[in-house]
């Protein structure tokens, strides 16, 4: 959904980066069952995604879990006395291109953290390539509109090509699950809470549903 910066400079799990780089250089396949770097990858992805689901922007990981202090010598290591344990997040790893995971399971470019229930419904449905949130020319404005009356995303109505609009709508409804009942209700309630604080002149921070909040409050850019 939101644009995600996953450029190389953002990889703080350098041990993982070196390991996967070596595998690729030697032309070796990635073993999905080898989980040694799972936390390194997952937490680094959360850092890039600001702790929200890459598609629905639901809040799935507390910021404390992916703070810089949790990386030591290029490895993710959360202290034993930390408030959160390593499993205290609600996401699962999504392979954007399901085909790619057969040979390159740990391919950084293909990975995103998404809400676990959304992942189970999405299953192996393939997302349209142009909606990959870390593409250089991707922006949510280009493809989506948000209606704050019904709390639903629709394909950008400025897109002239009806087939493209239809494809985006299918992605919204069936793959990215942006209009899933639970997602929609949580988004509606969250925006309502932010609006209430604004009306009362109270301070607020936005830690989820970034796109819909911004478009509803400030208008779509």
């Amino acid at each position: 959904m939101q644009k995600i910066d996953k450029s190389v400079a953002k990889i703080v799990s350098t041990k993982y980066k070196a390991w996967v780089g070596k595998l690729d250089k030697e032309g070796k396949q990635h073993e999905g069952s080898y989980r040694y770097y799972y936390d390194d990858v997952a937490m680094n992805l959360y850092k890039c995604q600001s702790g929200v689901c890459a598609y629905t922007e639901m809040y799935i990981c507390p910021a404390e879990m992916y703070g810089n202090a949790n990386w030591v010598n290029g490895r993710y290591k959360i202290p034993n006395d930390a408030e959160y344990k390593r499993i205290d997040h609600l996401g699962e790893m999504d392979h954007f291109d399901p085909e790619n995971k057969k040979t390159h399971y740990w391919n950084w470019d293909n990975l995103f953290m998404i809400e676990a229930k959304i992942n189970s419904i999405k299953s192996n449905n393939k997302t349209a390539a142009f909606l990959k949130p870390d593409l250089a020319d991707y922006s949510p404005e280009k493809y989506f509109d948000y209606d704050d009356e019904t709390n639903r995303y629709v394909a950008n109505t400025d897109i002239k090509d009806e087939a493209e609009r239809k494809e985006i709508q299918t992605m919204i409804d069936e793959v990215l699950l942006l209009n899933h009942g639970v997602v929609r209700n949580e988004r509606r309630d969250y925006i309502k809470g932010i609006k209430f604080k604004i009306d009362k002149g109270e301070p607020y921070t936005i830690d989820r549903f970034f796109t819909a909040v911004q478009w509803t409050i400030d208008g779509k850019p």
Partner: protein
Amino acid sequence: MKISKIEIKDFHQFKDLTIDLTYPKGHAKEGQPLDKVCFIGQSGTGKTSLLELIPKYAVNYNTHLITKSGMPSLHDKVEVSFVFGENNKYTCRSTFSKNSLNSKINGLSNWIWSNDDINTDIAKSEKLLTEAISFIDNWQQRENHKLIYFPANLLYNDNIKNDLPPLEDSIIDFSQQGVSYVWDSILAKIQLYQEKELQIRQEISKAIENSKGSVVIDVIENAAKKLKEWKQSEFNPIQDIADNCLNALLHSFKLKVKTELDIKSKADLGFIKIEDKSGNEIPHDSWSTGTKQVIYSAMPLYQLKPMNTIILFDEPERSLYPDLQRLIVDYYSSLTENCQFFYSTHSPIIASNFEPWEIVELKFNEEGKIYRELYYEGENHVDNYKWNPKQMRWDDILQRIFDMENDGGPERKKLLDELAETNVKFKKLGKQGKGDTEEAKKLLSKIEILSKELSHWD
């Protein structure tokens, strides 16, 4: 007897699955086995399989699943933990091991006790288990301690007589025998009561016939008094069934148990009759499937008054209207004492009767194996549960727990998408200063029509 944990290494679609069935931290019963458990999950996730594993590990009874799968499939694959006795004093784990002497010789399970005083080699058999538990409360020797299994396809066997189960069975399995099994004793009691009443009425009739003149009034008064006294002193099984079992539920069908004696033929003697609120009798062969479901599942619990045992219900919602589904879980519990209930259901209304820790939601993972979706975040503490079906709206239960993606059918979703798209188009025109154009007016008209159409159902 209650189950505190089920661990499955590899059996059918289950692999490395552990189901903790105890109350979470912060609960008044923290660490004790749950009083009731609700298995939910889409078809094929093994809800019924879990129900059918329980009798095997509890009392070495072969349900249909075990007969079909064969014993080798269980060897060293499943372990079920139990607690027994007052204050859950006794705990043990039940397994079937390929290399066990007991298993080799007679197919018995291993019982590994946590209590030193009975954890001997000999103790690892049902025989000692029976003796040990008999010492506690004579379990298995009493009918009301038998495990009870209500399958989804309850056998509505209307052939009421001669359907007794083998006496040695340690379970009452309604997938193998008609529900009529428990009816015999109930009907016998009813018949005895009705025969006595008929006898008294016959005596009254004869006395009146043989009396003359002013004596007739005295005879009638005495006879009426005798009948009244007899009714007051004699336990009336029909009235008890009406008051303490069926009327609470039949009320939802606008029906009640007929308690007045009304014998028109031989078939009317010794039977439970149902009538509507106007007193019109509903013949037995005209009972609706829902009425039968309620009566045939409630009566065994009423009759047997189960104690300290396990009761299994597969799809209890069958044929029941939602308002009745809302009642039956608490209702069945009210007919028992200190029993552990296991339900398997597809009904959000049944699920709404359970605390979040009592729900075991089974799901497929990417490899097609089953896992339990946890409803808590972090530590298993009552404060960390994110959902509580008892406090949620029906639509919220459907969406959050039963994973219904939308709040309505495909037609509603299509209209909502259309409305959202039209709203966006209209607002965009407004921003461009074209809010008064023909195009904008058309969009506004469409918004009004769609909103009106959808608002009927909001």
